[in-house]
Protein backbone atom coordinates (compact mmCIF):
# COMPACT_ATOMS: atom_id res chain seq x y z
CA UNK A 1 0.00 0.00 0.00
CA UNK A 2 2.85 2.28 0.90
CA UNK A 3 4.42 1.58 -2.47
CA UNK A 4 1.29 2.60 -4.35
CA UNK A 5 1.02 5.90 -2.51
CA UNK A 6 4.65 6.73 -3.21
CA UNK A 7 4.29 5.84 -6.88
CA UNK A 8 1.08 7.86 -7.19
CA UNK A 9 2.60 10.90 -5.52
CA UNK A 10 5.68 10.62 -7.74
CA UNK A 11 3.42 10.54 -10.78
CA UNK A 12 1.42 13.56 -9.63
CA UNK A 13 4.59 15.43 -8.79
CA UNK A 14 6.18 14.84 -12.18
CA UNK A 15 2.95 15.79 -13.95
CA UNK A 16 2.81 18.96 -11.84
CA UNK A 17 6.38 19.88 -12.67
CA UNK A 18 5.71 19.17 -16.35
CA UNK A 19 2.70 21.50 -16.43
CA UNK A 20 4.44 24.25 -14.50
CA UNK A 21 7.40 24.02 -16.87
CA UNK A 22 5.24 24.11 -20.01
CA UNK A 23 3.21 27.02 -18.58
CA UNK A 24 6.34 29.04 -17.93
CA UNK A 25 7.83 28.05 -21.27
CA UNK A 26 4.62 29.26 -22.93
CA UNK A 27 4.92 32.47 -20.95
CA UNK A 28 8.41 32.97 -22.36
CA UNK A 29 8.00 32.06 -25.99
CA UNK A 30 4.51 33.16 -26.99
CA UNK A 31 4.40 36.39 -29.04
CA UNK A 32 1.65 38.38 -27.38
CA UNK A 33 0.55 39.27 -23.86
CA UNK A 34 -2.81 37.53 -24.13
CA UNK A 35 -1.28 34.29 -25.39
CA UNK A 36 1.20 34.36 -22.51
CA UNK A 37 -1.61 35.04 -20.10
CA UNK A 38 -3.50 32.10 -21.53
CA UNK A 39 -0.51 29.81 -21.21
CA UNK A 40 0.44 30.88 -17.70
CA UNK A 41 -3.09 31.06 -16.36
CA UNK A 42 -4.16 27.55 -17.29
CA UNK A 43 -1.09 25.44 -16.75
CA UNK A 44 0.02 27.26 -13.61
CA UNK A 45 -3.20 26.48 -11.82
CA UNK A 46 -3.17 22.86 -12.98
CA UNK A 47 0.50 22.37 -12.16
CA UNK A 48 0.05 23.82 -8.70
CA UNK A 49 -2.97 21.62 -8.03
CA UNK A 50 -1.13 18.47 -9.15
CA UNK A 51 1.87 19.18 -6.96
CA UNK A 52 -0.36 19.91 -3.98
CA UNK A 53 -2.14 16.58 -4.55
CA UNK A 54 1.24 14.86 -4.59
CA UNK A 55 2.06 16.44 -1.24
CA UNK A 56 -1.34 15.49 0.16
CA UNK A 57 -0.67 11.87 -0.76
CA UNK A 58 2.63 12.01 1.03
CA UNK A 59 1.10 13.62 4.11
CA UNK A 60 -1.69 11.05 4.47
CA UNK A 61 -4.64 11.71 6.82
CA UNK A 62 -3.32 14.57 8.93
CA UNK A 63 -3.68 18.26 9.63
CA UNK A 64 -1.03 18.86 6.97
CA UNK A 65 -3.39 17.50 4.33
CA UNK A 66 -6.12 19.88 5.53
CA UNK A 67 -3.75 22.81 5.19
CA UNK A 68 -2.72 21.65 1.73
CA UNK A 69 -6.40 21.36 0.81
CA UNK A 70 -6.96 24.95 1.96
CA UNK A 71 -4.05 26.18 -0.14
CA UNK A 72 -5.23 24.30 -3.22
CA UNK A 73 -8.81 25.53 -2.81
CA UNK A 74 -7.61 29.11 -2.45
CA UNK A 75 -5.35 28.92 -5.49
CA UNK A 76 -8.10 27.12 -7.42
CA UNK A 77 -10.38 30.13 -7.01
CA UNK A 78 -7.97 33.06 -7.05
CA UNK A 79 -5.60 32.13 -9.86
CA UNK A 80 -8.27 32.38 -12.57
CA UNK A 81 -9.61 35.51 -10.89
CA UNK A 82 -6.19 37.13 -11.02
CA UNK A 83 -5.81 36.09 -14.65
CA UNK A 84 -9.20 37.63 -15.47
CA UNK A 85 -8.29 40.82 -13.61
CA UNK A 86 -5.05 41.02 -15.59
CA UNK A 87 -6.78 40.53 -18.93
CA UNK A 88 -9.49 43.01 -18.03
CA UNK A 89 -6.96 45.63 -16.91
CA UNK A 90 -4.88 45.19 -20.05
CA UNK A 91 -7.95 45.31 -22.27
CA UNK A 92 -9.31 48.40 -20.52
CA UNK A 93 -6.08 50.28 -21.21
CA UNK A 94 -6.30 49.35 -24.88
CA UNK A 95 -3.84 46.51 -25.23
CA UNK A 96 -5.37 44.56 -28.09
CA UNK A 97 -4.62 40.91 -28.94
CA UNK A 98 -2.00 40.34 -31.58
CA UNK A 99 -3.26 39.90 -35.15
CA UNK A 100 -6.99 40.32 -34.44
CA UNK A 101 -8.45 42.93 -36.83
CA UNK A 102 -9.77 45.96 -34.94
CA UNK A 103 -13.23 45.56 -36.52
CA UNK A 104 -13.71 42.22 -34.83
CA UNK A 105 -12.87 43.66 -31.45
CA UNK A 106 -15.48 46.36 -31.49
CA UNK A 107 -18.85 45.02 -30.29
CA UNK A 108 -21.47 44.79 -33.10
CA UNK A 109 -24.14 47.49 -33.25
CA UNK A 110 -26.72 45.09 -31.75
CA UNK A 111 -24.56 44.29 -28.73
CA UNK A 112 -23.76 47.96 -28.09
CA UNK A 113 -24.13 48.08 -24.26
Amino acid at each position, binding site marked *: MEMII*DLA*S*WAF*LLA*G*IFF*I*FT*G*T*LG*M*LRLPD*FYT*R*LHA*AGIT*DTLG*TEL*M*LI*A*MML*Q*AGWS*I*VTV*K*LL*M*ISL*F*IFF*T*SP*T*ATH*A*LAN*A*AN*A*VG*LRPFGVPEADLRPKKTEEA
Partner: protein
Amino acid sequence: MMFAAAAAGLIIPMLMALVRGLAGPTLYDRVLAGNSFGTKTVLLIAVLGFIGGRPDFLDIALLYALMNFIGTIAILKFFRYRNLGVADSPDSKNGGTA
Protein backbone atom coordinates in the same frame (compact mmCIF):
# COMPACT_ATOMS: atom_id res chain seq x y z
CA MET B 1 14.71 12.88 -2.30
CA MET B 2 11.38 13.26 -4.06
CA PHE B 3 10.86 16.76 -2.72
CA ALA B 4 14.40 17.72 -3.64
CA ALA B 5 13.44 16.91 -7.22
CA ALA B 6 10.26 18.95 -6.77
CA ALA B 7 12.23 21.91 -5.45
CA ALA B 8 14.69 21.68 -8.34
CA GLY B 9 11.78 21.34 -10.76
CA LEU B 10 10.36 24.57 -9.34
CA ILE B 11 13.50 26.68 -9.36
CA ILE B 12 13.92 26.60 -13.14
CA PRO B 13 10.40 27.86 -13.97
CA MET B 14 10.87 30.55 -11.35
CA LEU B 15 13.98 31.78 -13.16
CA MET B 16 12.10 31.66 -16.45
CA ALA B 17 9.29 33.70 -14.92
CA LEU B 18 11.91 36.25 -13.82
CA VAL B 19 13.25 36.40 -17.36
CA ARG B 20 9.75 37.18 -18.62
CA GLY B 21 9.44 39.74 -15.83
CA LEU B 22 12.60 41.53 -16.89
CA ALA B 23 12.05 41.21 -20.62
CA GLY B 24 8.30 41.73 -20.64
CA PRO B 25 7.56 44.70 -22.95
CA THR B 26 4.30 45.75 -21.36
CA LEU B 27 3.58 46.38 -17.71
CA TYR B 28 1.06 43.57 -17.71
CA ASP B 29 3.71 41.03 -18.74
CA ARG B 30 5.61 42.01 -15.64
CA VAL B 31 2.55 41.73 -13.43
CA LEU B 32 1.84 38.32 -14.95
CA ALA B 33 5.44 37.24 -14.28
CA GLY B 34 5.14 38.50 -10.71
CA ASN B 35 1.91 36.63 -10.15
CA SER B 36 3.33 33.45 -11.65
CA PHE B 37 6.51 33.77 -9.58
CA GLY B 38 4.41 34.21 -6.44
CA THR B 39 2.39 31.08 -7.13
CA LYS B 40 5.57 29.09 -7.58
CA THR B 41 6.98 30.54 -4.37
CA VAL B 42 3.92 29.23 -2.55
CA LEU B 43 4.73 25.77 -3.86
CA LEU B 44 8.39 26.09 -3.04
CA ILE B 45 7.63 27.06 0.57
CA ALA B 46 5.33 24.05 0.88
CA VAL B 47 7.97 21.74 -0.60
CA LEU B 48 10.66 23.13 1.69
CA GLY B 49 8.28 22.59 4.58
CA PHE B 50 8.06 18.95 3.61
CA ILE B 51 11.83 18.64 3.14
CA GLY B 52 12.61 20.27 6.47
CA GLY B 53 9.90 18.32 8.25
CA ARG B 54 8.22 21.55 9.37
CA PRO B 55 4.43 21.35 8.91
CA ASP B 56 4.05 25.01 9.97
CA PHE B 57 5.59 26.12 6.67
CA LEU B 58 2.21 25.42 5.09
CA ASP B 59 0.67 28.30 7.05
CA ILE B 60 3.35 30.55 5.58
CA ALA B 61 2.59 29.16 2.12
CA LEU B 62 -1.12 29.87 2.52
CA LEU B 63 -0.40 33.41 3.69
CA TYR B 64 1.95 33.94 0.80
CA ALA B 65 -0.77 32.84 -1.62
CA LEU B 66 -3.15 35.37 -0.05
CA MET B 67 -0.62 38.19 -0.26
CA ASN B 68 0.36 37.31 -3.81
CA PHE B 69 -3.23 37.56 -5.00
CA ILE B 70 -3.94 40.79 -3.17
CA GLY B 71 -0.65 42.26 -4.40
CA THR B 72 -1.50 41.51 -8.00
CA ILE B 73 -4.92 43.11 -7.70
CA ALA B 74 -3.43 46.15 -5.92
CA ILE B 75 -0.83 46.67 -8.64
CA LEU B 76 -3.51 46.45 -11.33
CA LYS B 77 -5.74 48.89 -9.49
CA PHE B 78 -2.90 51.33 -8.94
CA PHE B 79 -1.89 51.42 -12.57
CA ARG B 80 -5.53 51.65 -13.66
CA TYR B 81 -6.60 54.55 -11.45
CA ARG B 82 -3.23 56.11 -10.54
CA ASN B 83 -4.20 55.85 -6.84
CA LEU B 84 -5.54 53.13 -4.57
CA GLY B 85 -8.46 55.20 -3.43
CA VAL B 86 -7.23 55.12 0.15
CA ALA B 87 -9.50 57.32 2.25
CA ASP B 88 -8.24 60.89 2.88
CA SER B 89 -4.97 60.32 1.05
CA PRO B 90 -3.86 63.47 -0.80
CA ASP B 91 -4.23 62.06 -4.32
CA SER B 92 -7.59 60.30 -3.99
CA LYS B 93 -9.98 62.91 -5.39
CA ASN B 94 -13.10 62.22 -3.42
CA GLY B 95 -11.42 60.20 -0.72
CA GLY B 96 -13.71 57.26 -1.47
CA THR B 97 -13.93 54.95 -4.47
CA ALA B 98 -11.88 56.02 -7.45
